[in-house]
């Protein structure tokens, strides 16, 4: 045998062959030329040729194959190349000898296990020693020269999933169990394990000793983890841990690569991964050929790291070449970005990128290292990795938002608290909410509210005529919006011209409107143009100032210093693009969205269409637009606006939007509110919602158990009288009458009574009205 040249003679390519049945396990012979495949309905030996698998032998013989052929595991003897062992699902351990002259190669049968045998393992150096682990909780050691086991190791009726002889220590073997434990045994001492530790939660499906490192054991479990343990110290220590995406069925160290191991999963995931345990987040290499779960993996030769064999439930046997593996790291994104709840931003990237000079001059780049906003910077260097890895050190920066700046979520909290959703006439609600939005510097939302009021209020509504801005422009908004919708497409060309005209000729109030729109219209929001009706002169002037002084670097709007926020928070004032193109601000606005109407249109239309339409359009007419608007807001992430409008509009719009979407919005908004601990607001929203699924949120956890105050037994029936002691249970401690209605009680001494009585009492006294001596407090 050409022992020394063996490694170099292995050659081949990625190849596969079809089996007749799903495989459960595979094993190779020592010289890496043959592989045995075993399963419930298959037991064959294949030869590994240069360009394919060749079936050498079918061991499954007999007219009606017995269950002894139904293999859960198989192992080829590493010393004696004619010997094989299989573990059968019926509890038998079978020895096969290929040298037998007849067709039936079965040499020996051990039927000592009472349940399925999960694993068999030959001793790496002792020719005649075989170990088995079974579901019945026993491990047995067989001497191949004898008819029965020489020693039995008891796992205290916990099922054994895997047994492995240590490669370096002659007497040691490891066993993994269904309850998550791993035990180390000395083969000479069957009475008690040497060591035991809990490796995983749930079953440990597999374990594998490191071929070189004496004390290293890798285990894989149902909890989706692969762990590497160091046994050489007095306490077993977890040194590496890899988190995979599915329960780990097999784990095998890669030959000649100290830190590599291959895994495959039990369920759902069909790939084989090779991990570098030092980099547990992303597989080193992946083989993606199988179409069903991989059940057996084995490195073709114990000194060759480039060939991996695998069998699978999809009835194929593969030889994978390492050079054909896919390398997920090549496709991984090396940068990470994440927002915190309060507007903080974390950003991680390669150091080389991070230290790029901040000379770009962009407002946003200022915040890179050297910028004043940078809060802490963490340098995170990986420990030395082998030559195969590029040295990467990344930097993580955390940008903190300034307190009170609009970058944070303060606006959200403020808005949530100050919006009115019910309790007033529709017009007033809108008016109020518009004011709130404006106060918080959110003109777009403000305008939306105003517009909604205009759309859905009765024309005779006094609140409409109270709007002096409308009078100023001398135009009925209803007509405006209508005509704009109808004609916007057709007039878009003319708009531009008109626009230019306006820009140049109009100097006064009209122009103010115009400029204002110019500043903010780049958001492309259809409803936005109505803002002109609502903005105060002051506002308009200031905006105009901004726009005219576009070249000047200082801004009053804080969010500009932080353009990264733009995509995330829907803030209406977005002057940046406008500044870049001060010459043609509207083109982008009106071209990008056909529904985008600019105020210019309305002005241009005044002359054309003012009297063409009746001012009494049914509110229903606007529903499609409003619906679109709500969806827009929701999509922008401002679900608050969508839900608030939904509630305020109520039946006017509800029918238009399908139930599921509404429910989704409600859920998201409520979730947000609860994260900000705005319990009252969230409850109000739940109460006002009309979706069944939302309303039932309020029905959960509403039960309160009470004990009778006399007999101290639980009150089980309705009413005020305890059914055991037949006395009134809840008596006011102040007036000694039964409390029907609001009942308040002290959580300290559990006395209480009528709300008003207790309040009254505690104004004068600090002590409990019942005289128990407790110092009650009412807040």
């Amino acid at each position, binding site marked *: 045998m050409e022992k020394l040249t063996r490694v170099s003679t292995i050659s081949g390519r990625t190849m596969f062959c079809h089996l007749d049945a799903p495989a459960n396990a595979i094993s190779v012979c020592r010289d890496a030329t043959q592989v045995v495949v075993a399963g419930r309905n298959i037991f064959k030996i294949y030869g590994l040729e240069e360009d394919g698998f060749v079936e050498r032998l079918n061991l499954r013989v007999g007219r009606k194959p017995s269950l002894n052929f139904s293999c859960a595991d198989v192992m080829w003897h590493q010393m004696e190349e004619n010997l094989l062992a299989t573990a059968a699902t019926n509890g038998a351990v079978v020895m096969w000898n290929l040298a037998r002259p007849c067709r039936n190669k079965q040499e020996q049968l051990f039927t000592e296990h*009472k*349940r399925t045998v999960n694993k068999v393992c030959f001793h790496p150096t002792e020719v005649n020693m075989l170990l088995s682990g079974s579901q019945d909780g026993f491990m047995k050691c067989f001497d191949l020269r004898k008819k029965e086991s020489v020693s039995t190791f008891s796992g205290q009726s916990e099922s054994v999933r895997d047994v492995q002889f240590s490669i370096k220590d002659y007497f040691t073997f490891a066993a993994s169990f269904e309850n998550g434990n791993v035990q180390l045994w000395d083969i000479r001492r069957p009475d008690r394990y040497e060591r035991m530790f809990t490796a995983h939660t749930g079953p440990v499906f597999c374990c594998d000793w490191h071929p070189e490192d004496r004390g290293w054991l890798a285990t894989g479990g149902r909890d989706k983890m692969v762990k590497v343990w160091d046994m050489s110290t007095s306490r077993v220590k977890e040194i590496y841990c890899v988190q995979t995406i599915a329960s780990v069925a097999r784990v095998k160290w890669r030959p000649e690569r100290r830190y590599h191991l291959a895994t495959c999963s039990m369920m*759902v995931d069909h790939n084989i991964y090779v991990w570098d345990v030092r980099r547990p987040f992303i597989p080193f290499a992946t083989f993606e050929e199988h179409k069903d779960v991989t059940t057996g993996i084995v490195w073709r030769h114990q000194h060759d790291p480039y060939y991996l064999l695998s069998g699978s439930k999809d009835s194929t046997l593969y030889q994978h070449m390492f050079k054909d593996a896919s390398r997920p790291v090549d496709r991984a994104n090396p940068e990470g970005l994440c927002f915190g709840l309060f507007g903080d931003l974390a950003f991680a990237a390669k150091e080389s990128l991070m230290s790029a000079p901040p000379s770009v001059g962009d407002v946003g780049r200022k915040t890179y290292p050297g910028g004043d906003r940078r809060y802490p910077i963490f340098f995170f260097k990986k420990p030395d990795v082998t030559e195969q890895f590029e040295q990467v050190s990344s930097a993580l920066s955390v940008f903190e938002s300034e307190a009170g700046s609009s970058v944070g979520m303060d606006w959200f909290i403020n808005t949530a608290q100050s919006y009115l959703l019910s309790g007033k006439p529709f017009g007033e609600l809108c008016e109020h909410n518009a004011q709130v939005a404006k106060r918080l510097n959110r003109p777009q939302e403000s305008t939306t509210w105003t517009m909604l009021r205009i759309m859905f209020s009765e024309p005779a509504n006094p609140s409409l005529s109270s709007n002096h801005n409308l009078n100023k422009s001398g135009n009925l908004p209803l007509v405006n919006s209508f005509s704009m919708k109808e004609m916007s497409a057709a007039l878009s060309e003319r708009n531009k011209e008109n626009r230019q005209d306006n820009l140049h000729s109009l100097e006064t109030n009209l122009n103010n409107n115009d400029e204002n729109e110019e500043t903010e219209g780049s958001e492309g929001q259809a409803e936005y143009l109505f803002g002109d009706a609502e903005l105060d002169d002051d506002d308009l002037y200031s905006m105009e100032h901004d726009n005219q002084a576009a070249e000047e670097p200082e801004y009053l709007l804080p969010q500009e210093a932080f353009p990264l926020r733009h995509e995330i928070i829907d803030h209406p004032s977005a002057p940046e693009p406008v500044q870049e193109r001060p010459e043609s601000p509207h083109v982008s606005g009106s071209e990008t969205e056909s529904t985008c109407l600019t105020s210019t249109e309305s002005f241009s239309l005044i002359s054309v269409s003012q009297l063409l339409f009746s001012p009494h359009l049914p509110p229903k007419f606007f529903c499609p637009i409003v619906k679109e608007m709500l969806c827009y807001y929701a999509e922008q992430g401002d679900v608050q606006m969508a839900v608030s409008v939904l509630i305020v509009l109520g039946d006017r719009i509800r029918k238009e939007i399908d139930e599921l979407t509404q429910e989704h919005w409600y859920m998201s908004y409520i979730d947000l509110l609860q994260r900000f601990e705005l319990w009252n607001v969230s409850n109000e929203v739940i109460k006002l919602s009309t979706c069944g699924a939302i309303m039932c949120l309020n029905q959960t956890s509403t*039960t*309160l158990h009470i004990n009778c105050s006399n007999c101290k037994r639980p009150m089980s029936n309705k*009413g005020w009288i305890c059914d055991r002691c037949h006395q009134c249970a809840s008596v006011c401690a102040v007036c000694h009458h039964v409390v029907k209605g609001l009942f*308040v009680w002290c959580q300290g001494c559990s006395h209480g009574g009528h709300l008003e009585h207790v309040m009254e009492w505690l104004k004068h006294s600090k002590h409990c009205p019942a005289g128990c001596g407790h110092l*009650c407090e009412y807040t």
Partner: protein
Amino acid sequence: MIYNIKTHINFIGLYCQNVFFIFMTNVLLVPQEKGMKMSRHISTGPSSFIPENEVILNFFFQRLFSSMPLNDSTVMFLDEEFSGRMDNLTQVMGLHPHYLQAFLRCHYYLLRMDGPLPLHYRHYIAIMAAARHQCSTLVCQHVQEFEQIGVCSDWLRGLEFCPQRLRNLNEINKILAHRPWLITKQHIQALVKTGEHSWSLAELVHAVVLLAHFHALASFVFGSGVNPDPEVTEVNGVTDDICPPAMAGLCTCHLTNSNQGNRNPLRNPDTGSELEALMERMKRLLEEREDDDASEEEMFTRFEKEKKESLLVVSAGFDEEVVPPSPVARFVDDPSFGYQDFARHGEDNPPTFKAQDYTWEDHGFSLVNRLYSDIGHLLDDKFRTACDLTYYNMASHEGVDTSMLRRALFNYVHCMYGIRYDDYDYGEVNQLLERNLKVYIKTVTCYPERTTRRMYESYWHQFRHSEKVHVNLLLMEARMQAELLYALRAITHYMT
């Protein structure tokens, strides 16, 4: 803030009947006497099979605190559970507090805790599942719960009033309830394929677990003759017409009527030796095991024989039973679809499910836990507790290893469902389970609605009631696991 404004007493009263279902309570534990409001029922107590004093709480607590080695947390847990009124089901199950704990955790996780399905869906699915076995006890209970959620109450008028999405579940509901081996990946595909009424995989898994859970629970309810809860029938509105007093007592009346006059007829003179014979057989089997080298073929035939024999084990007279028009029927679609034997004579039988190829521990758990987090652990815990539960007692004998008997029961149920364990000798079933017991097992697992008190009394005369409840627990878990295995295997096939 020490003072806390609290609510209207009436409001509390309304929920008090539901008190037992709430975890968070800090009321003191006060054991409650039973039987104050039972006037309506023919037999009192939690079960119509078991004498009331066997289940009574004193007994239970005595047992709980004296003989059971429970840790503190368990006691705490039970304290919380029972500070209010317990329902009958819990009381009967309470004969095995260890198990009860695992059961309740799982039960409430399924119905109350975070999960893919909204609360009212869960109860509706529970209703649908229980209705398949005409289990009015469970149906009423969940109709009531459904009402308390307070939405979509018109669904309770019947299946045609609930959304199409839920109605789509009918198909797998009926298959799982009666012939789970027929479920295929096509069924899953039909539910999951994109469309207006599609289910997400996570929702589907939740629904499947709920279905299996309530099918099995129906088995338990009938198998141990759990009486309907008195309070449940007292609610107003829709429930009233679903569970009129007479109806609510249906299973009770039905069961007691069927064996009037022979309440203790089966005390044969030779029953005294029955127990000894069983013990003897167990001992013999244990010894034989060592030298019983039955050939593969024989093992196979033994399984086939058990399977075939389970066909013959039929309670007579039910062949073409017409389902009585009951109010529960409104939640049942295709009521004629019932149990059919897995192995039928002269037909193409579906292939046997090889237990080792798709086990709960390896495959089922991973899948279910992946799609519906944490439920795997709870179910795992429940299965384990049920399978490992033992008091080392058999009737009057103590210190007996009952594992062989338990395994026989568990595997016999799986055998009827066509699930085969390679490493089990089905000859043991034949040795250990007498015919009356087999009739009972088959009835309880396959068509529990036909269980009668006579069946319950006809086996194991000398055993305690708590031991028979133990048998029921095993049957219930075995059945649930079988259903789950078939359903999850279909889902796995769909996913690959």
